[in-house]
């Protein structure tokens, strides 16, 4: 099973974890990542997410497909929210189910690293000084590039 969604609505991690393993008894591990909108010390009052309808969903499916060729995964769910979000709100969910934990941990991290550099989402932060678009970070590119050497890690 693989599912990707781009939506304004919030998601329930408990429901999603049950969907990942529904009807199966061969799953030994579920790894999930939940990203939250960071505010407080960053001065961010609100975050607005823009995407490219059509291409965003397609690129998320490509990333999930790539993960499934690298690891033995039983099910994968990726949800990314768009629109206006407040600090503390959930923004992204990646859930991966596999036979063993090593594959689940690795695939979950891989999907997040690729999502951050290859899926067309853009963040705009509202701060007391006004609104600004978030710049892409070199650190995110490095995080994605290290998977090019994945054979050496397995």
């Amino acid at each position, binding site marked *: 099973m693989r599912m990707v969604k781009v939506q304004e609505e919030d998601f329930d991690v408990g429901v999603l974890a049950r969907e990942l393993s529904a009807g199966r008894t061969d799953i030994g591990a579920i790894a999930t990542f939940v990203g939250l909108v960071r505010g407080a010390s960053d001065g961010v009052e609100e975050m607005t997410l823009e995407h490219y309808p059509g*291409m965003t969903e397609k690129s998320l499916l490509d990333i999930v497909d790539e993960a499934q060729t690298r690891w033995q995964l039983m099910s994968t769910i990726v949800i990314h929210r768009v629109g206006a979000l407040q600090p503390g709100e959930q923004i992204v969910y990646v859930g991966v189910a596999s036979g063993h934990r090593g594959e689940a941990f690795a695939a979950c991290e891989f999907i997040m690293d690729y*999502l951050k550099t290859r899926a*067309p989402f853009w*963040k705009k932060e509202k701060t007391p000084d006004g609104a600004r678009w978030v710049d892409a970070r070199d650190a995110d590119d490095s995080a994605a590039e290290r998977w090019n050497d994945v054979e050496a890690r397995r």
Partner: protein
Amino acid sequence: MSIKLLYFASLRESLGLADESLDLPEGVDTVGALRAHLSGRSETWGRLAPGHNVRAAVNQAMAGDDASIKAGDEVAFFPPVTGG
């Protein structure tokens, strides 16, 4: 015959334009040539010039400057992505 152009995020805001139709000028048949063509519109459009930090997609797939373009294609330009 024309192509559909889309602009996203900070690029859309600075251009003041989200989308447009463009009749492909003679000889403009790659992303790089299209960038050169559009960047000549004004100083603001110069942000699209080849070599600048703006990404492109042709028919919803990431595309480099040598990617070809033909009538009916959907071409998008946008800043580096920042999701997650």
